[in-house]
């Protein structure tokens, strides 16, 4: 019996969506941990890129910032933003990007800017950063969030980054070159997108949770297929690698 926290489960689950040899935008936090874990296990040739300018990064210690010098040592090139977000991302060279959000709607559109109205916001969030660029132009998008009903909303307070916008054909209408979100991973379940409607669909439920638990914790109509499997658990090896990558629990200790 492997022992793990909800956060470790989330990171291990996300890491499985990275394929070997892919160009990956990692960022910081849990997405970075998931990408590093993938490199240490099934995807050793993944090319980890930070938008600050680090290419093919292999950090020894977990960076706290996309520009952290911890990203520098062992990377193959350290350049800048026009390189990573322009020549690499906007030119269509990123296979997969990771994003988190404070709010997501049923088409996978994301809010990282404001809670409350735009005119009189209650909470100013970090903003897009490179998030909008990644959501616009990465071939696939993996969204990672801790599960909270208030985050899975019918209507976003502000749309920072594009998911599938208003459904089929809308990304094409705006000339977006990326494929949009492929999977949403929380500490409760995995969700993908119904190919016909491009609306969020339940994919698997993590051990200890039921389909009803998930339905009670989203504020839109979630598509539930007939067969909803249980998400595979992390392996002992995955847990040990994560503890080695983040020995002080900078990211693993959060959200407990």
């Amino acid at each position, binding site marked *: 019996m492997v022992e793990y926290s909800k956060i470790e489960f989330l990171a291990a689950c996300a890491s499985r969506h990275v394929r070997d040899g892919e160009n990956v935008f990692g960022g*910081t*936090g849990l997405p970075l941990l998931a990408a590093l874990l993938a490199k240490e296990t099934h995807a050793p040739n993944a090319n980890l890129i930070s*938008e*600050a*300018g*680090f290419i093919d990064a292999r950090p*020894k210690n977990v960076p*706290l*910032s*996309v*520009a*952290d*010098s*911890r990203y*520098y*040592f062992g990377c193959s090139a*350290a*350049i*800048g*933003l*026009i390189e990573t*977000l*322009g020549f690499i*991302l*906007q030119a269509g060279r990123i296979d997969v990007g990771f994003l988190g959000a404070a709010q997501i709607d049923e088409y996978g*559109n994301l809010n990282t*800017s404001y809670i409350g109205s*735009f005119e*009189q*916001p*209650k*909470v*100013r*969030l*970090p*903003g*897009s*950063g*490179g*998030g*909008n*660029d990644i959501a*616009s*132009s990465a071939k696939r998008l993996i969204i990672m969030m801790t599960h909270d009903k208030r985050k899975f909303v019918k209507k976003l307070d*502000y*749309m*920072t*980054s*594009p998911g599938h*916008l208003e459904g089929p054909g*809308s*990304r094409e*209408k*705006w*000339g*977006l*070159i990326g494929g949009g979100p492929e999977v949403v991973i929380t500490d409760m379940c995995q969700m993908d997108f119904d190919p016909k409607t491009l609306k969020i669909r339940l994919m698997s439920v993590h051990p200890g949770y039921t389909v009803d638990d998930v339905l009670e914790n989203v504020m839109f109509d979630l598509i539930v297929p007939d067969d909803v499997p249980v998400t595979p658990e992390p392996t002992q090896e995955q847990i040990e690698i994560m503890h080695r990558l983040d020995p002080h629990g*900078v*990211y693993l200790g959060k959200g407990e």
Partner: protein
Amino acid sequence: MTESEVHDKIITLEEAAKLVPDGSGLFWGGFGYQRAPIAFAHELVRQKKRDLTIYTCGSEVDIEIMVGAHVAKRLEVAFVAIEALGLANNLRRRVASGDVEMEDYSNLAMAMRFLGGALNVPFMPIRSLMGTDMITKSRYRGDKKLKVIDDPFGGGKVCLVPSVQPDFSIVHVQRVDADGNAQIDGIVGEDIEGSRCGKKLIVLAEELVGSEEIRHSPDRTVIPAMYVDHIVVLPYAAHPMQCHNYYDYDLEHLMMFHKLTKTEEGWEEYLNGHILGVDDHYGYLNMVGWNRLHSLRARKPWGY
């Protein structure tokens, strides 16, 4: 240019900040935790500057300081938070009260606005922002925030972002010679474009080196002297953020800063103690303590 004119480029931090009138627009260099011009933000606060507009991709503690002390009124940015530590608390309060107005762009959009400014063209096309509220919502630029057009050459929709040529560019680098040739170690973020888009460029450098040192490794000179108007030489100008190959971030100080800014009273305590309560940058460094600063010095070969 005579020798004395060249050497006149080197001025003090106080003199440099005095050049910036109230209401100016500033490109703000550094990215994330790297090479943030914190010392310049402190001096703008000590000189009680007002109504500045800050243009940058992603800045953190420096923006918190400038909005907290009512120095910056408008921000055209992509990202403000303390990344791993959490939300920008001062900004959150200033935006909620309406004291600070933000115009939201993405990192690529801002970098391209700087590139457009540096190239002296009026706008740049990008593929980001499309379909989102960044297109439809504006705080104060209105229809001058951006434009979505059909590619005149037949390639579909494209977003045009307006170039920026602010009054000043403020960039922090590792080393500079007396002529102004500036070298950056590690990532450049958006500082190549940013250093060339402003009407005047002020470079803050950790170290003043001889011209021979620059000419021995000219490939590292990412900002040639011809762009540089003024030079300020100061150690630990980015503390508590990091400067690659020179010093690491001061995580304890950052956590203290982030915790204090959770309340207005806490922020005022920091402001009055660490910024207004000292005469200059050296006063700040003395307060932080040289034992501590020394412990942050970068170790070879890691650079942090």
